[in-house]
């Protein structure tokens, strides 16, 4: 039994910079497309609106002030989730399941091109007592430590990360939303300058401006609005520990993603995700996380993800395609909109509207997101398409 249905999607970007629009105008464009896609009037048909954003990304203290106007939520139930867009989606699902809301709109946007000191804002995310004063030279250091822990545990090496980075960036050439795509070889990556051992700049995703809006409905109402509903069968999210205790994190693993996945799978009635779903869009803001995600999501046996990846099992035409979109490495990290961008890719696949990178077999999918360093929160969604 589906918990909710996505009846409309709209987006703007993702692109490394969008000087032509304010963040509000960007949200309005994405929202207009989503409501047109769903055939709903936000001022009459939508019962509540959720925005996923964070103050320091926005440059505004209590940034939710600016949420209602562009999304159509003025004088309506509107609020903000400080988390990845998939967490906001989880709230929408819960709201619908109470029986009190029929249609909920979910919005998330990112304008990293508006931020002049993005690195220093990442510094502000580090624990002020134990980590920030140590002055790590790069606030994303968690990615390198996780990568090394993963290597030590599984025997993977830098060439496996390079393989993921090359594969994803090449794959993005088929995706019009992938600004960071391009042809690059494994050797080029391995020979390039390291950023933080063992990661090169090819292994770390860039940042992108984007806005994504979803229209989510009670599942039994979906067909009233669209012939192509995408159903949410399960949604889970979890936090491993706070950033105030990042040192307690299990390095080289993403326990939060495992917990989130198990919740989502149990709701969807999934035992083995590999045989019950057709493809996945998973976390990859640094290449090692793609491999870690595969294990945490149960898509690869413990410690084997890099070997299966090397064998081509997760290629576009492999046994189980992972990130047919090219992932964040090709599309960029859109701050809190990252999860929704990946969900958008999955929705388009399930609706058969993915264009040049449409999979032939796409009926059920997994989407997983992580909020990025130094956080330990993940969210996982199980989706099924109209033909499922």
């Amino acid at each position, binding site marked *: 039994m589906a918990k909710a249905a996505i009846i409309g999607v709209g987006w703007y970007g993702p692109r490394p910079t969008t000087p032509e629009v304010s963040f509000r105008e960007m949200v309005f464009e994405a929202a207009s497309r989503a409501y047109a896609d769903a055939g709903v009037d936000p001022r009459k048909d939508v019962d509540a609106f959720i925005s996923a954003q964070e103050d320091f990304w926005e440059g505004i203290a209590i940034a939710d002030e600016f949420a*209602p106007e562009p999304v159509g939520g003025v*004088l309506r139930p509107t609020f903000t*989730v400080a988390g990845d867009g998939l967490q906001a989606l989880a709230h929408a699902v819960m*709201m619908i399941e*109470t029986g*009190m*809301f029929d249609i909920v709109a979910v919005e998330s946007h990112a304008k990293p091109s508006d931020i002049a000191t993005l690195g220093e804002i990442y510094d502000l995310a580090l624990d002020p007592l134990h980590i920030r004063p140590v002055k790590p030279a790069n606030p994303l250091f968690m990615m390198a430590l996780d990568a090394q822990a993963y290597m030590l545990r599984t025997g993977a090496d830098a060439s496996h990360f390079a393989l993921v980075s090359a594969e994803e960036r090449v794959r993005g050439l088929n995706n019009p939303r992938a600004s960071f795509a391009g042809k690059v070889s494994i050797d080029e990556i391995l020979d390039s300058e390291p950023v933080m051992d063992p990661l090169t700049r090819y292994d770390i995703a860039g940042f992108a401006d984007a806005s994504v809006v979803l229209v989510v409905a009670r599942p039994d109402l979906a067909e009233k609005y669209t012939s192509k509903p995408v159903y949410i069968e399960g949604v889970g999210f979890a936090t491993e520990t706070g950033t105030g205790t990042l040192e307690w994190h299990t390095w080289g693993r993403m326990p939060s993603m495992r917990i989130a996945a198990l919740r989502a799978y149990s709701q969807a009635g999934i035992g083995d995700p590999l045989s019950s779903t057709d493809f996945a869009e998973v976390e990859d803001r640094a290449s090692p996380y793609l491999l870690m995600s595969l294990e945490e999501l149960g898509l690869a046996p413990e410690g084997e993800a890099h070997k299966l990846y090397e064998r081509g099992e997760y290629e576009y035409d492999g046994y189980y395609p992972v990130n047919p979109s090219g992932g964040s490495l090709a599309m960029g990290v859109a701050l809190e909109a990252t999860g929704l961008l990946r969900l958008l890719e999955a929705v388009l696949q399930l609706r058969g509207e993915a264009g040049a990178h449409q999979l032939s077999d796409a009926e059920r999918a997994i989407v997983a997101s992580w909020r990025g360093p130094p956080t330990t929160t993940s969210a996982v969604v199980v989706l099924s398409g109209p033909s499922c």
Partner: protein
Amino acid sequence: MRVNLHVKDRVAIVGAGMTLFRRRLLETPRELAWEAARQALNEAGLTLRDIDCIVTGTAPDAFDGVHFNGEYLADGAGGFGKPVSRVYVGGGTGVMVPIAAWWHAASGHCDTVLAVAEEKMSPAMPHPQYVFAYIWDPILERPLGPNLIWIFAMEMRRYMYKCGAKKEDIALVSVKNKRNALDHPAAQAAAKITVEDVLNSELLVWPVNRLDISPVSDGAVALVIAREKTARRITDSPVWVEGVGFTLDNTHWYNRELAYPRYVQYAARMAYRMAGIERPWKEIDVAEPYDPFDYKELHHIEGLMLARPCEAWKLVKEGYFDRDGELPTSPSGGLLGVGNPIAAAGLMKVAEIFWQLRYEAGKRQVKKPVHKGVAQAWGDLMQAGTVIVLGN
């Protein structure tokens, strides 16, 4: 608004806890969350093992001085390997937290939820007022060098003009709430003061004097929320969440009438409808309207439809809202008396209604018998209304 009244599961509050509210606390933000969470768990007789999900609230991050403040607090709120999410609507956050916790439980996703709100304003130097400069529109408003108090003063001035209230009428709210707070063990700004004291305190932005305003505070509050079956196992006296409502008005506050908070009224209507309340002024026994400024309590009493527009200030004069009055408001002492750690202050109001409905408020217990109470918070650029109706 379309509201389906057939909600799947009844949800109750079964425990509450809070820290002291003070201008400057030694505890880190996550320690504050921890202390409040632990108190709430203890009061409910539970441990973290019994908790399925966690909802946190805090806003804005530039007070604590930590980006991803929700993530930073997560472990303090008990978020180890559990679903944790943070919601916010500025000052309305404190009541938004139990609203979100409500749907975590009412949807069947979680049996028990720990709802924690925290704010530590004191790290921002030289004065937390700095941070309030950033709530304004960066292009149209910040270049004018605004101070947060301007916005309230402008609203208060408009209310006075429209409703004929005078500064001394409004000051009575501050006198009442600070007096009520004398009986609150966590209170920061409890005092026996007179209207003259308010009028003679430092003039900040006419018509606002220092004693018209709640103080700068650190603090945290936590609630334990559970679905009906579990709630009845935990306690003999659960307090039911009977209605929830929330509304955001537009960002452009200077494009609308400021004398009446229609966003609070919309949120209240949503909550009352869910709770089956048709005549709130008769059916509500005790209320905690949001009172960061004294006139704000009047504004919100009217928005909550507990008094007619422009009449709340007259009723205050008659003692109607006193603890032994017809409809006691802010028996806790409110933000003016207990203190105002933004998000935590709103949740403190919900905790007060919880204690009132359990007859556990001690000296603060209102005189009349209580069955239904309402708590409300407000925030952003005079645009957010969050309302929760509780019943015993």
